[in-house]
């Protein structure tokens, strides 16, 4: 099976978000980057498990500038065979989806994470599926293959739905699909020699633009309640916060 895993680069989860003075961008000074956790922990690892069980190949794809190569190399160190980077500074979700779709023909399964932890769009996978005209199952927590038929469990509000789909298909991975793998020394050494093909982007307009960012208002100081007096807490929740 030929598998493609789309990975995004995101700020590390403990990053304190600060903005540039004109509020049009994240202040990137001092920010550490990682591979988007859903892409790394679940999508990539499940693709590798399927390859280990049934053969085939796992290719990593990122749309981004050259400094994303370190994140891509990490994916190769975890076990992907090769990688493609579409050389671009990005241009919004539909722009990224069009770049991915231009590379994604001929794969049996195209994997995504359920969302990026920076822009939280949850939309690129569905966009690519529509552009390719294939089935899409979002927020999937289990994926089993039997020949070319996938049985997928997807998360829905307060429950799960189990579906069956034939390849080719696109899927976005949520918690439960696999367990995180830490690359070992051998993997890291081998990753340096694996092919990372850089290709140029196709033409696509931006459909959205972030006009500005804003930080949430600072929380006022916590009101401490006497642990013996929970009637007081209930009164405040009712009268002051008006939530019960």
């Amino acid at each position: 099976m030929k598998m493609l895993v789309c990975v995004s680069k995101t700020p590390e989860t403990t990053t304190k978000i600060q903005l540039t003075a004109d509020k049009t961008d994240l202040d990137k000074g001092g920010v550490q980057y990682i591979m988007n956790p859903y892409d790394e922990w679940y999508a990539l690892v499940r693709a590798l498990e399927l390859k280990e069980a049934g053969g085939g190949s796992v290719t990593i794809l990122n749309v981004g500038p050259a400094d994303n190569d370190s994140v891509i190399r990490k994916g190769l160190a975890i076990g992907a065979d090769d990688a493609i980077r579409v050389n671009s500074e990005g241009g919004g979700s539909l722009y990224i989806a069009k770049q991915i779709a231009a590379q994604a023909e001929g794969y049996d399964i195209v994997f995504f994470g359920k969302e990026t932890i920076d822009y939280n769009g949850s939309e690129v996978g569905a966009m690519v599926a529509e552009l390719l005209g294939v089935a899409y199952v979002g927020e999937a927590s289990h994926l089993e293959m039997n020949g070319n038929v996938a049985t997928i469990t997807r998360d829905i509000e307060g429950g799960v739905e189990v579906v069956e789909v034939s390849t080719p298909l696109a899927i976005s991975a949520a918690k439960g699909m696999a367990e995180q793998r830490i690359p070992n020394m051998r993997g890291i050494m081998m990753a340096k020699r694996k092919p990372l093909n850089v290709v140029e982007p196709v033409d696509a307009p931006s459909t959205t633009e972030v006009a500005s960012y804003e930080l949430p208002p600072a929380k006022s100081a916590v009101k401490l309640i006497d642990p013996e007096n929970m009637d007081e807490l209930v009164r405040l929740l009712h009268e002051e916060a008006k939530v019960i």
Partner: protein
Amino acid sequence: MVLVFAEATNGKFKKAAHEVVTYGAKTAAALGSDCVALTLGNVEDAGDLGRFGATKVYNVSAPELAGFDSGVFTAAIAGAAQQLGAKVIVLSHNSTGKNLTGRLAARLDAGSAPGVKAVPVVDGGKFTVRKAVFSGKAFADVEILTDTKVVSLVGNSIPVEESGSAVGVESLTVELPAPKVKVLSTKRAEGTTPLPEAELVVSGGRGLKGPENWGVINDLADALGATTACSRPVADSDWRPHHEHVGQTGVAIHPNLYIAAGISGAIQHLAGVNSSKTIVVINKDPEAPFFKAADYGVVGDLFEVLPRLTEAVKKFKSA
């Protein structure tokens, strides 16, 4: 025209459907246009959506829509939008919406804003709408540059408002592709409100010491009519089911009230819960970082504080 996709579960609308129609009506008002609702498949009393501001309700029913296939649903919604000449499409940012927003945007070559929290600002031809980014650590005001626009609304971010009365329902015929996805089974927990939709949430962390101690959390949740949640290590240790895990890598929630007991307040936990309107933290360590993000704090042993709080809630409810 603003077209709202109002989802029904087993033929009935949930609060999310009323929220998106309210949102659509307000968006239409900002644009000086009309809001219509679209329902797919068999829906009871679809015209009731008029109460929340839809001037008309359309329905597409076809055997292809019996199970959820994002490709078929996208064809239905996009087809209806094109027939009606709708320029703005509104959906819920729930599991169904997350399977559809991107497909619709790609199909219509439209700009999209997934996960918006407020009604768009329309100013001199600019359409700008606010969404949460960095898992709630910041907001982005996103301008949609295309003529056709797709937005999906986060649950519990605007109040439902009644502004009209029931309206007529008209059938539409849209050409649909054959489904590629076959639904084998659908399971939903009965009774409790799912976490992403919950208004009241009671959550436990490692401070609970073990799964056998969850009674104190469940009792408070039952007294309040709240949904239960947990921190990531609790789910990873299988003390609680994975779907209860909230935070940056779990479910992002936006209830009116979030009560956290025995949770330290790590940044990744806060990322998924900081959109809660009111946060109560119960922790025996006065230095726990969660107190900085809390509205109300109780420094004490949760095994004493929670039962006391449960009693106080019961007293309040019966008063």
